[in-house]
Every structure is written in C-alpha cells, then in structure tokens.
C-alpha cells in the first residue's frame, strides 16, 4: 500500500499530464488559461507533497508562492490582458485537435523513451521525469501549432512549469533562492512579452503571427 503522499504525488503527476493534454484540445484562449491555472495548482500541490515526503520546509514556501503566483496572479493578469486585446477563439490551429492529441500522445511516448535512457529504467523517477519532459514537449508543440502571440506566451509558461516541476520532482528542489529567481524571471518575462504584444498589435493590427511573415522596417 502506497503512502498517502506518494499517492498524492502520483495523482498530481497524472493530473498535470491531463492538463497538458487538455491544452492541445482547446481552441479557446480562456480554456488554455484555465488549464494553465489547474496545472500550476497541480504542480504546487505536488511540490508540497514532495516537501512533506522529504521534510523540506522550503518546498512548502515554494509551493505556496508558486501556487499563488502561477495559479492565481499570472492567469488573472494574462486573462485581463487577453480581454483587452479582444482575442476570440483561436481559429487558426495548424493541426486539428484530434491530431494534436495523438501527437501529444506520441510526445509522451518519446518522453518515456528519453527518460528511460536518461535515468535508467529501474529508477522510480522515470515516470516523474517522463511527465515533466512530456509537458515540456507538449508546451513546445503547443507553441508550434498555434499562431496567436498569446498562445506562444502560454507555451513558454507551460514549458517553464515543466522545468520547475522536473527540478522539484527529481532533485527535491534547488535552494529556495534559485526557485525564487526562476519565478521572478518568469514574471519579468511575461511583463516584457505583454508589452511587446501590445506593440505588435499597435503596429500590425493583428497578433496572429502567421500574418507576420514579412519584415517591416
């Protein structure tokens, strides 16, 4: 019988993977944002569970901090910002949702193979690494398959989530200051990107990158 926080970690792993799959299905920005919110909360819970498992109090702090920032502040921020841009449904999906789903499944398989060769198939960390790697790849695929600038931003956020998740799962977290640094970095990144997006919209009347194919002086 697994210990209950093992179960929690295991569940949260499955849960964040689920949110990863959901992101590629949804055409609509609001849903993607919702997925990000859920995923961040899932990661925060997993972090807390790992902290409990290892008795590392700084992981609790990280869990609370990242839960609040990435599960509440950042999505709200981006949501308001999307409303101001007046973005509607993401209509131009290069790949249909069903096909993207199967591609995401394939990425999971690839992640499994990579993580097996990386950690060795006997290690218990295989699955955790696999999930994190799969989320990273799915985030990247998400960026590739969409043309909206906001989606690109979301893709980066997903990848960041995956990276921090992998760090926590694999090495029980770096010193708190490093994690905080990463968090801060993300916040600044979003700030810069959001300013850029407004500039792009001002200049081109569109934030669809598939229309931004010619260079402007």
């Amino acid at each position, binding site marked *: *019988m*697994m210990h209950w926080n093992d*179960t929690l970690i*295991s*569940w949260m*792993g*499955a*849960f964040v*993977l*689920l949110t990863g*799959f*959901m992101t590629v*299905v949804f055409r609509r920005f609001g849903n993607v944002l919702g997925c990000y919110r859920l995923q961040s909360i899932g990661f925060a819970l997993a972090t807390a569970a790992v902290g409990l498992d290892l008795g590392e109090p700084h992981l609790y702090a990280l869990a609370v901090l990242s839960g609040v920032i990435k599960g509440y502040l950042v999505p709200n921020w981006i949501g308001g910002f999307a409303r101001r841009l007046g973005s509607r449904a993401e209509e131009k999906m290069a790949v249909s*949702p*069903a096909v993207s*789903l*199967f591609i*995401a*499944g394939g990425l*999971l*398989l690839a992640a*499994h193979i990579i993580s097996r060769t990386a950690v060795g*198939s006997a290690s*218990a960390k*295989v*699955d955790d690494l696999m999930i994190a790697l799969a989320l990273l790849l799915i985030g990247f695929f998400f960026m590739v398959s969409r043309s909206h600038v906001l989606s690109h931003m979301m893709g980066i956020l997903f990848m960041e989530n995956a990276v921090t998740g992998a760090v926590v799962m694999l090495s029980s977290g770096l010193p708190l200051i490093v994690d905080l640094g990463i968090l801060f970095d993300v916040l600044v990144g979003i700030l810069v990107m959001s300013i850029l997006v407004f500039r792009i919209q001002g200049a081109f009347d569109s934030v669809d990158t598939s229309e931004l194919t010619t260079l402007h002086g």
Partner: protein
Amino acid sequence: MLTGIAFAIRLLIKIAALAILAPLIQGCIKQFKGRLQGRHGPRLLQPFFDLIKYARKEQVISRETSWVFSAAPLFSFAAVLTAALMVPWVDRSPWPFPADLILFVYLLAIPRFMMALAGLDAAGSFGGMASSRESAVSALAEPVLLLSLLTIALPGGSLHLEAIPVAANSLPLAARAGGLAAIAFYCVVLAEIGRIPVDNPDTHLELTMIHEGMILEYSGPLLGLLHFTHWIKQITLLVLLFNVFIPIGMMVESTGAWTAIIFSALIAVVTFLAKMITAIALLAITETWLAKLRLFQMMDLLGFAFVLSITALLFVATGV
C-alpha cells in the same frame, strides 16, 4: 446441483434488482437534474409509471417498416440484459458465467447495431440521421471503452469482469493509470448512454437527436422495452465504472461464519447504494454544468479519452 441452484437464485435476485433499480436511477437522475436547474423535476417513480403507461398503449407502427423494426428492440434487450448480468454488483465471487470483457464490449455493440438498423427502417430522415450519428459516435467510443477497461484488467491477467478488482488488489483509482482510465471511461459512459455533452436526452428537437431519433417511430410496449433497455445499459455502465475503479466494500468470497457473511453483505449493499448515489450526482452535475458539444467535436472528446487511456496504458506497461 447445489451450485446450479445457487446460480439460479443469484440470477433471479440480480434480475429483480435490475428491474427495480434501473428505472429508479433514471428517476433519481431526472429529479436531481431538475433540482439543480431550479425546477421541481419529475417524481422519483415516474419511470415506473411511464413503463406501465407504455405497456397499456396500443402500438403504432409505420407502414414502411420491415421485420427488423420489431426485432431490433428484442435483440437489444436480450443483449443488454446478458451484458448487465455479467457485471458484478455487490460480490466478487466467481460468476458461473462468461463474464468476459471483450464479450461485454461486443454485447453492448448489439443494441447499437440493431437500433441503427431500426432507425433506417422507417424510411424517415430523422431515424437515418440518428443512425448515422450513432454509428459514428459509437465507432469512436468502442476502442476507448475496451482500452480503458483493459488497462485495469491487464496487469491481473484475467479478462473476467468480476476478477478485475481482485486482480488489481487495491484501489485502481488511486494510481495514475487508474485515475486517467477512469476519466476516459467516464467520457465513454456519457457517450454510450447518450447524455450531455454528447447527446441531449431531454430534447425532441428533430435535428439534434441521436438516441431519441432512432426510437422515434416506436410506441407502446416496444417503446417501453427500449427505454427499459436503455436504463439497464445506463445502470450497468455506471456500476461498472464504480466497481472497477473503486472496488471498495464488495463481498469477496462467501465462506466463513454465517454472521460474517451477512455483515459483509450488508456492507456491500450499503456501499453499492452509496456508489449509485454518487453516480447519480455525478451525472446530474455533468449534465447541468456542460452543454451539448457540436456534433463533430465529439471526435475531440472521445479522442481525448482515447489518448488518456493510452497514457494509462503506458503507466501500466511500465509497471508504475
């Protein structure tokens, strides 16, 4: 001889329970859904009254129909009943009965096949429309149904439905694979029993019907039989969902002291009822919370369920 009699008694008890619970659950879902929407909702026993009403009505049959029309409800009923008897309800002791998982999935395909034919039989476009939609939806649902159950059954090595929980020997829902497979299975259950977001059971709007479209031409006792069949299918799938993924409280083997058996049976029945209440709440909330998906976005929902069950399979295959 003794096992034969015991088997017959168990069979009869199960049939009686089906006859009572299947309409009752339908009534509960409708009532609860009504409450959630701010209505009073129909009476809990309304499905029984409906059945009695249908039994008393005369039959109105289209002149365009052939033998398929009358045969389809009978075939569907027989298949669904057989499938329903295969699913363990309160006890996990071996059932002297081919409770094979693949057989179960294929038995559930019989009503779809027959009703799709019956929909085409009356020569109207609504029936045909519903048949073609049902075929398209079920084609996507069937692999997920099989795969999500397989992910739970495979590690144990047995494909017998009552052996699945025993083989897993713990709470499948607690593991990653079990959780993902349960979500996938629930998506398929929604599609199979024609509930929102796949089909709207309350509509008779001509152009959006799936299940209601196929039974549009039926009336009187045959319509009653079809509804009853559908309710049996509904309760069977719900029981399967809960008993496979949360096999808590089920009776294991009827050996030991007299009182112990009675006690465990009592516990099993109570947990069973609790599971059913949860199922009712789950369905009613889902139906109130969601709206009907666009017809061709069903592909996305079922594809999502399929990928989830593949992921579950990956976890199972790697043995975590």
